[in-house]
């Protein structure tokens, strides 16, 4: 079976527990374990090949455009990690079977755990950097789910979020680093990247790449100053801590450094950044661990410290240091996982993790205690245990390095101090929990755990012992193979012996042991010293910090956008000015050479009227009716200008639209507040006025610049073909119903939609109805003056006739369906005004909605009709037919289309106005409040 089966199997394994709940807890666990077991076997089948120095590969194309392939490789390093992940994973599955209570959703737990396992395997097996990143982020995600497994707990939620945020941020930095590498190397393929070490180290982007990649690694592996998420991740169930936060996920960062070691290491920058970070982390973690009363807290900081140690080793840049790092990865995984599991057992069986409560458990759970003591000893670096071996190698390497020049001696000194603290907290773990008198106020009486819950611990502790005693025999080959991979093929000479003789590293070990003992004995003094510093809850601080940032953002955003329409409008206008005025400024001369029209007195009078009226509208806009009248003047002058400058159709349309608008606004005025308040400050008025003048100036300049320059347009076509091909002499109308009939189809759709929308708005509108006019005069009692009624009714047939006339001639002379429709509507509205809604409701049995619909439908059908002749939408047809008596009559499909326009216009405007008028006849009105 190919390599891709490894993550695939575990992925399937993540789905299985969701449906295996019925099999019972043991069944579920067993079935889940089956998949990593097979995967482990699969990996095992490749061991010989890998030990042989070969790399197993699998590759398939996925997204070639971005260089993302499905690509796996199994070399020594990957093998080591895969074994750890699958092996410890299996133990954790077994352990969790007993750890989780009946209430906990086991299926969900296993599913997330397996998902995490998949992601972790994906990282270590990836042969493509992007694919590796893919799995990298998946580990963040699945760890989020695992930490927040008990999501009813606030600390779980906060811890999970913080972990996700920190590792997520690192992941994004890593991504940037990876993409830079990819762009530099031209491939994301790990084989190629690993072969391009010199290219990368020599690149000007090397430092950027290094920092970005290390950000990813450091956040994931909880290096200072990103270490603080890890202790808060302890809110997770203990199997998760054992698995993710000791053995695997936190090692992903280490793995990354090891993986890219051939490419990135070996420079001064690498040494400085990595080793100093590692050293700081080592010291801070070790120091902090001592003060944690929570068992898991102690272990968490201890983990931080050991991760620092490994980082430091990788940072040193020597080959032997790298080997030591790999060795310590293995050792730490075994003893720390077993310690977490032991802590979990203690918690599980005693109900507490607080070392101030937990005392003298030796009596209650001697077997567990033995295991935990051995594991702690391994952590402390006691000889005959695996921790001792890697620590010795570490000490030896600290003595070797000299890059820091005259202060190089500090490294072994700090290493020894760190080790001393390590001994101290290990002692504390052993003594405070298993000895030191009797337990205090424990929720339950402690006892040994179920038999099989201890098995994983026993296996791991056994490994600590065996490796510690027979290192070369047990893991010699694995270590060599993994180290070869890290070092890019060059394995240094080293020997895995228990006894190297009396040398400096051994002295350091002894010093650390002694120092640790002294530290532990004098711990109370240290505790008192540490008590001077307030206990910080990083998770809470982090949360508060984000809230504070959020509040700051709200204030900042409020400056740009206070939610006010005026503010938004301001920005819109501002941008319009900003983008359009600079080009206009570069215009040499506003006026072009096109001959201009001479001015006469009427034009001046009209322009005066227009400008005075529009400025007066602005000045008097608080006087509602007055501004409406001013608007009428503007509309009138605009219509006359259209007429004057050869646009009769426009003049007619503008006039009729004008009237409907006035009627509409009058209706609105009745229901809007009678007095308009002034909401504007003087500053605002100045600002708005300047902006308005700028925009007006821009538009005016544009108008002038355009009008005074000649241009060539496509319009000759319409002039040439309106009559011959379009069948009409009114070119504008032919454009509307034929050349650009599609626009008109859209336009009547707009009108119809507006009517529908307005209908919706009017429905259930509860309006205020004023009793008096703004001056306090009650309304006149005479609703429908008789003379007004009589004349209005007499005008109706005349207006309808005019409307029909306008409709009919539209194709050849100014007019057409739209104007005719408006005239009809106005004529009917006039009846509404003169005679009242009730009078007409009983007499007009037209469903305006259906009128709109049929208008649109007619236009639509006219357009689609051409499909029958294999012609495109709206292909027109016209012909002259000779009727007896009447003579030659032109028939055109455009007329049917225009009829559709007509009906839509009538329907839409009547639907709006009649419904609006009808509002007051129903009983939905409210009293005016002012």
């Amino acid at each position, binding site marked *: 079976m190919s390599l891709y089966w490894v993550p695939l199997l575990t992925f399937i394994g993540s789905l299985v527990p969701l449906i295996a709940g019925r099999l019972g807890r043991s069944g579920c666990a067993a079935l889940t374990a089956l998949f990593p077991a097979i995967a482990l076997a699969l990996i095992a089948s490749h061991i010989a090949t890998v030990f042989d120095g070969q790399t197993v590969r699998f590759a398939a194309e996925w997204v070639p455009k971005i260089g993302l392939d499905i690509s796996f490789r199994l070399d020594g390093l990957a093998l080591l990690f895969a074994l750890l992940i699958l092996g410890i994973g299996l133990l954790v599955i077994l352990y969790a079977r007993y750890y989780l209570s009946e209430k906990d959703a086991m299926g969900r737990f296993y599913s997330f755990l397996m998902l995490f396992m998949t992601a972790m395997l994906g990282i270590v097996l990836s042969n493509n950097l992007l694919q590796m990143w893919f799995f990298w982020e998946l580990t963040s995600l699945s760890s989020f789910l695992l930490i927040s497994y008990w999501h009813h707990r606030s600390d779980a939620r906060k811890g999970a979020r913080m972990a996700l945020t920190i590792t997520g941020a690192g992941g994004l930095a890593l991504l940037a680093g990876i993409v830079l590498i990819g762009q530099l190397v031209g491939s994301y393929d790990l084989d190629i990247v690993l072969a391009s070490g010199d290219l990368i180290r020599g690149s000007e982007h090397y430092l950027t790449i290094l920092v970005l990649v290390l950000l990813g690694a450091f956040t994931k592996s909880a290096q200072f100053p990103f270490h603080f998420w890890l202790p808060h991740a302890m809110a997770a169930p203990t199997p998760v801590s054992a698995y993710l936060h000791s053995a695997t996920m936190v090692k992903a960062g280490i793995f990354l450094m090891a993986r890219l070691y051939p490419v990135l290491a070996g420079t001064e920058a690498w040494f400085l950044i990595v080793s100093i970070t590692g050293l700081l982390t080592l010291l801070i973690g070790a120091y902090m661990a001592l003060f944690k009363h929570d068992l898991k807290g102690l272990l968490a900081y201890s983990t931080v410290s050991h991760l620092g140690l490994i980082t430091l080793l990788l940072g040193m840049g020597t080959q032997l240091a790298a080997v030591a790092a790999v060795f310590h990865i293995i050792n730490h995984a075994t003893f720390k996982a077993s310690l977490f599991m032991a802590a979990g057992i203690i918690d599980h069986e005693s109900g507490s993790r607080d070392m101030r409560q937990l005392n003298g458990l030796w009596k209650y759970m001697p077997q567990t205690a033995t295991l935990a003591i051995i594991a702690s000893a391994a952590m402390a670096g006691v000889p005959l245990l695996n921790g001792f071996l890697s620590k010795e190698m570490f000490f030896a390497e600290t003595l070797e390095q000299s890059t820091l020049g005259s202060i190089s001696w500090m490294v072994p000194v700090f290493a020894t101090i760190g080790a001393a603290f390590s001994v101290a907290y290990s002692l504390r773990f052993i003594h405070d929990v298993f000895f030191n008198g009797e337990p205090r106020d424990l929720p339950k009486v402690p006892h040994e755990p179920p038999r099989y819950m201890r098995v994983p611990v026993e296996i791991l502790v056994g490994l600590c012992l065996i490796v510690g005693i027979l290192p070369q025999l047990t893991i010699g080959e694995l270590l060599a193979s993994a180290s070869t991979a890290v070092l890019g093929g060059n394995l240094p000479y080293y020997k895995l012996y228990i006894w190297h003789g009396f040398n400096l590293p051994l002295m350091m070990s002894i010093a650390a042991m002694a120092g640790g003992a002294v530290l532990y004995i004098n711990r109370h003094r240290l505790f008192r010293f540490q008590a001077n510093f307030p206990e910080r809850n990083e998770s809470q601080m982090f949360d508060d910090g984000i809230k504070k940032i959020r509040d700051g953002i709200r204030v900042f955003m409020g400056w740009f956008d206070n939610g006010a329409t005026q503010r938004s409008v301001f920005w819109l206008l501002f941008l319009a000015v900003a983008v359009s005025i600079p080009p206009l400024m570069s215009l040499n001369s506003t006026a072009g050479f096109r001959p201009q029209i001479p001015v006469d007195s009427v034009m001046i009078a009209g322009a005066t009227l227009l400008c005075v009226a529009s400025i007066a509208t602005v000045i008097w806009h608080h006087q509602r009716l007055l501004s409406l009248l001013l608007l009428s003047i503007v509309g009138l002058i605009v219509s006359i200008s259209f007429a004057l400058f050869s646009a009769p159709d426009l003049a007619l349309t503008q006039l009729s639209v004008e009237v409907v608008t006035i009627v509409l606004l009058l209706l609105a005025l009745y229901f809007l507040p009678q007095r308009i308040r002034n909401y504007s400050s003087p500053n605002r008025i100045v600002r708005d006025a300047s902006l308005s003048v700028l925009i007006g100036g821009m538009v005016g300049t544009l108008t002038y610049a355009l009008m005074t320059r000649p241009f060539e347009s496509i319009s000759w076509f319409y002039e040439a073909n309106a009559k011959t091909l379009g069948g009409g002499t009114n070119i504008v109308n032919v454009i509307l119903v034929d050349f650009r009939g599609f626009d008109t189809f859209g336009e009547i759709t707009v009108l119809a939609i507006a009517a529908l929308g307005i209908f919706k708005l009017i429905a259930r509108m509860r309006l205020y109805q004023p009793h008096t006019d703004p001056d306090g005069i009650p309304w006149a009692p005479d609703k429908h003056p008789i003379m007004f009624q009589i004349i209005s009714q007499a005008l109706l047939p005349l207006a309808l006739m005019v409307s029909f006339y306008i409709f009919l001639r539209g194709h050849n002379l100014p007019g057409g369906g739209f104007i005719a429709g408006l*005239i009809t509507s106005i004529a009917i509205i006039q009846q509404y005004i003169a005679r009242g809604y009730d009078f007409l409701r009983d007499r007009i049995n037209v469903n305006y909605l259906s009128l709109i619909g049929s208008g649109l439908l007619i236009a639509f059908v006219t357009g689609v009709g051409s499909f029958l002749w294999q012609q495109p939408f709206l292909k027109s047809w016209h012909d002259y037919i000779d009727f007896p008596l009447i003579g030659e009559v032109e028939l055109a499909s455009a007329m049917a289309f225009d009829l559709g326009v007509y009906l839509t216009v009538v329907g839409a405007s009547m639907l709006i106005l009649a419904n609006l008028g009808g509002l007051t006849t129903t009983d939905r009105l409210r009293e005016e409040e002012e």
Partner: protein
Amino acid sequence: MLETTILIVSALIGLSLLLNLWRFMKGPHMLDRIIALDTMYINAIALIVLLGIFMGSPLYYEGALFIAMLGFVSTSAVCKFILRGDIIE
């Protein structure tokens, strides 16, 4: 001759329009403004008819007709508004 006359008459109408505008601005009552506007409509009709004669084109006729019809509708609607507030009731 005709052209000169048209120029003179259009100046007369322009003057009329400005007088109307004066009354509109002066008021004093809203109704004065409405009369001023209504008179503007009438002057506008005359102006458009005059334009038609000047251009020798009958295309302007409907414009004049429209102003006549629509001026009435809007003026009466505004009066109704002053009288009753609700113009369609």
